[in-house]
């Protein structure tokens, strides 16, 4: 029996949470986190709309969950220290298209068959997928970089027996289009043992 995922809600209806409606994930209010046993869940979905200041106050709970084998899929810009082993982010002032072009550095089943060009652009407009870059831990698998290969955008790194899948932009599970939706692919990657390489 596979454990469900857990998505933390933020009080209003949004396309981000609707994009998770078709995967096996429970939706719970973010401020209920202290009362939740994360070990009941296979993956924790953290939206870019989350109160990171609150999450940082729960960093111990999140790290403990990871160490015991949990998976955290985290989005947005890491502004408060709620994830272990993460550093800050770097903005790109007055960015041009070449600065925010998505570069694929490694193949990964979640993005299999998806052209990075289709991540860079949404209806011809760039920037939805990512606009800043983060320092990835040295042992992270960097899937995508932003503009230059040494500026990580999507990466996976270990914490104890668990993993963080970090996406430094708009919520990852809202991408992929109708036939290649990332939400079920993320769930499949989690349930199939998340072979990282």
């Amino acid at each position: 029996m596979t454990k469900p995922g857990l998505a933390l809600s933020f009080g209003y209806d949004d396309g981000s949470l609707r994009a998770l409606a078709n995967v096996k994930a429970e939706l719970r209010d973010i401020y209920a986190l202290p009362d939740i046993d994360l070990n009941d869940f296979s993956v924790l979905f953290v939206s870019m709309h989350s109160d990171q200041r609150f999450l940082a106050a729960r960093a111990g709970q999140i790290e403990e969950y990871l160490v015991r084998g949990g998976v955290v899929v985290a989005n947005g810009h890491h502004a408060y220290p709620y994830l272990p082993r993460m550093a800050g982010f770097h903005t790109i002032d007055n960015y041009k298209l070449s600065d925010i072009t998505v570069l694929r550095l490694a193949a990964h089943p979640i993005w299999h068959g998806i052209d990075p060009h289709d991540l860079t652009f949404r209806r011809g407009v760039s920037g939805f997928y990512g606009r800043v870059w983060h320092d990835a831990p040295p042992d992270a698998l960097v899937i995508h970089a932003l503009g230059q290969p040494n500026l990580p955008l999507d990466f996976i790194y270990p914490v104890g027996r668990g993993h963080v899948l970090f996406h430094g932009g708009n919520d990852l599970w809202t991408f992929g289009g109708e036939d290649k939706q990332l939400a079920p692919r993320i769930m499949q990657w989690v349930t199939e043992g998340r072979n990282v390489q």
Partner: protein
Amino acid sequence: MSLAILDGGTFYHHAAIHGRRYRALFDKIIYAPELTADALTDVTFLIVPDRINPNVLRANRDVLIQFAKAGHTLVVFGENRADTWLPGVTWAARPTNFWWWLDKTAHPPHRLLAPDHEFFQAVPFESTIWHFHGVLTPPPGARALIDVPADPEGRDSGGALLYEDRVTLPGRLLVSTLDPFYHHGSNFMPATTKFLDGFLPWAKRKAAPQTDRGGR
């Protein structure tokens, strides 16, 4: 006598509020889950940025309403479900059209209804134009400052994107569906930065004692 802002703890609130560009304008930054009546002592102008968790706002509705009742100015931006906690607010969702500007011949539906209003001396109307998340129906006696016509697909009959209400409560309410803090704080959409470049210094001026400025 000061300008205060609620901070929802997201990365974009952090960037917009604590970032260098605007940080010095705020006399007080209140983490929304820690809002109390005491935190608003001496505050005359309170900004509720877009995308503060509505559960938190509803839990503090008495504090917020009491603040406006005391004759102060309360500005509430979009995606806060103000219709569930602030008197007089009626909001209808409209699916967001992020793409209206891709058609070079298209005109934004926004209409400036109150060009004489002081708000637009600080914030050029052009800097209020980006996508929007639903429309407001101002209560009787309130003044719509920006509106849009009926939804072309018939889902609503149009409404305000920004209105000023001086009648529902003794204070002044400015209510909007716009979401500038999210987009500025996300390093996306320069129009929202221009909006805040005008709005926040204006808010700072309005929060100060109105002795020799002559503005209302």
